[in-house]
């Protein structure tokens, strides 16, 4: 501590009125060798020894600076840039994974909605649905089809609806359960005069409005409302639906 305070031993040039005493000056200049404080400058101007000390410390600082400038690894800069690139790439990847998941969810929901709209209550009445159904399956059955379904197996299926036919309505090509606007129904295809005649046995449901007669430019249809079910007949315009209705009415019996 003492061996370098030689400045205090130096002859004072002048002024006992100097505001800064040696210790104060030393503290200031040691704390900041480049200090431009008025007090410090004044003290230096008044005392060459103080100026000398400032210079000495300034040079010492230069040495310190050199010593502190340890070599920076050559590759550090590149490493930093690389790490950032990787990090933001991963962030991107994470983001895109989130985006993918979102897109998938949206697709699934869209699919569900379409499905719901398409296969649920988009038809508001029995007639429209019956027509659509027949058109949809029109290529599955031909009037000259050799396939025949016996009355027994028809009645077995009819038992689901608690009904049965006392005798056959005609040449039955096909009898299968099907989804009639999401209701389990029986779908019968008979041989007709010029084309097949379709008969649906549909449980009574409220969401499809009952339509007695319906038609478009090719097909016509009629619905019969029974207590247990609706029976819908769809055929081309050559067919007498009244005849079919009459036959059905006559030959069907409901067990309950």
């Amino acid at each position, binding site marked *: 501590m003492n061996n370098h305070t030689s400045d205090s031993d130096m002859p004072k040039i002048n002024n006992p009125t100097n505001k800064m005493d040696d210790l104060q000056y030393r503290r200031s200049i040691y*704390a900041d060798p480049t200090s431009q404080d008025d007090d410090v400058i004044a003290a230096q101007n008044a005392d060459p020894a103080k100026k000398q000390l400032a210079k000495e410390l300034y040079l010492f600082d230069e040495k310190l600076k050199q010593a502190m400038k340890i070599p*920076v690894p050559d590759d550090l800069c590149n490493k930093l840039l690389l*790490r950032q690139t990787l990090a933001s790439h991963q962030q991107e990847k994470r983001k895109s994974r989130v985006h993918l998941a979102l897109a998938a969810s949206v697709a699934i929901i869209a699919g569900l909605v379409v499905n719901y709209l398409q296969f649920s209550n988009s038809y508001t009445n029995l007639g429209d649905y019956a027509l659509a159904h027949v058109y949809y399956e029109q290529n599955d059955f031909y009037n000259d089809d050799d396939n025949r379904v016996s009355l027994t197996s028809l009645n077995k299926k009819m038992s689901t609806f608690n009904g049965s036919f006392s005798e056959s309505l005609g040449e039955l090509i096909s009898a299968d359960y099907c989804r009639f606007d999401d209701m389990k129904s029986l779908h019968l295809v008979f041989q007709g005069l010029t084309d097949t005649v379709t008969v649906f046995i549909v449980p009574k449901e409220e969401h499809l409005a009952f339509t007695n007669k319906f038609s478009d430019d090719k097909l016509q249809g009629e619905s019969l409302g029974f207590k247990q079910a609706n029976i819908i007949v769809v055929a081309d315009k050559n067919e007498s639906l009244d005849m079919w209705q009459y036959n059905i009415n006559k030959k069907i019996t409901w067990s309950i």
Partner: protein
Amino acid sequence: MKIFGKNKIATQVLTTEPSKNSGSMATKQVRYEALVKALHGDLYRYAYWLTHEKQVAEDLVQETFLRAWRALDSLKDEKAAKSWLITILRRENARRFERKRFDMSEYEEASIMDTQSTTTEQVIENQWLRDKIAQLPAEYSEPLVLQVLGGYNGEDIANMLNLNKNTVMTRLFRARNQLKDALEKEPKKVRLLHE
């Protein structure tokens, strides 16, 4: 119109006035790269004097710049970039100590010495000084490094270290005082070794 627009972006990158829309990824990238290139050396040296270990210093700088990247939009004034980074680095260093409390004891300082074969006087003196700086208590060496290497004044340092300015000045005084003391006691020995 288009050229004009591009120009605007270019000047924005250079001057980086507090931009309304610094969110642009490309702009952010340019800013970041400029920051790394300009300041990684200073940051590394600062980290080194904080930790006294090259590898730790490097890791610390990497962590610091990663955090800086994430928070880059919050840096509005490019002139404050260095002190902003130093603040992040100090926080990271503190976190490191929370994670793993190991003490920097004497033998670690041995690693500060580079074993260099080309021993010019300057190199010897640097090594000797490095050793002495490393031996300073951290609360003295930190403001000293900030002042000498970072070029900050007492007030800046006080802000960065959350101290009042008088405390900083006292520590700076003590830091130099101890180094000068050491220098005046030992250099003959050091010189003798190499004559």
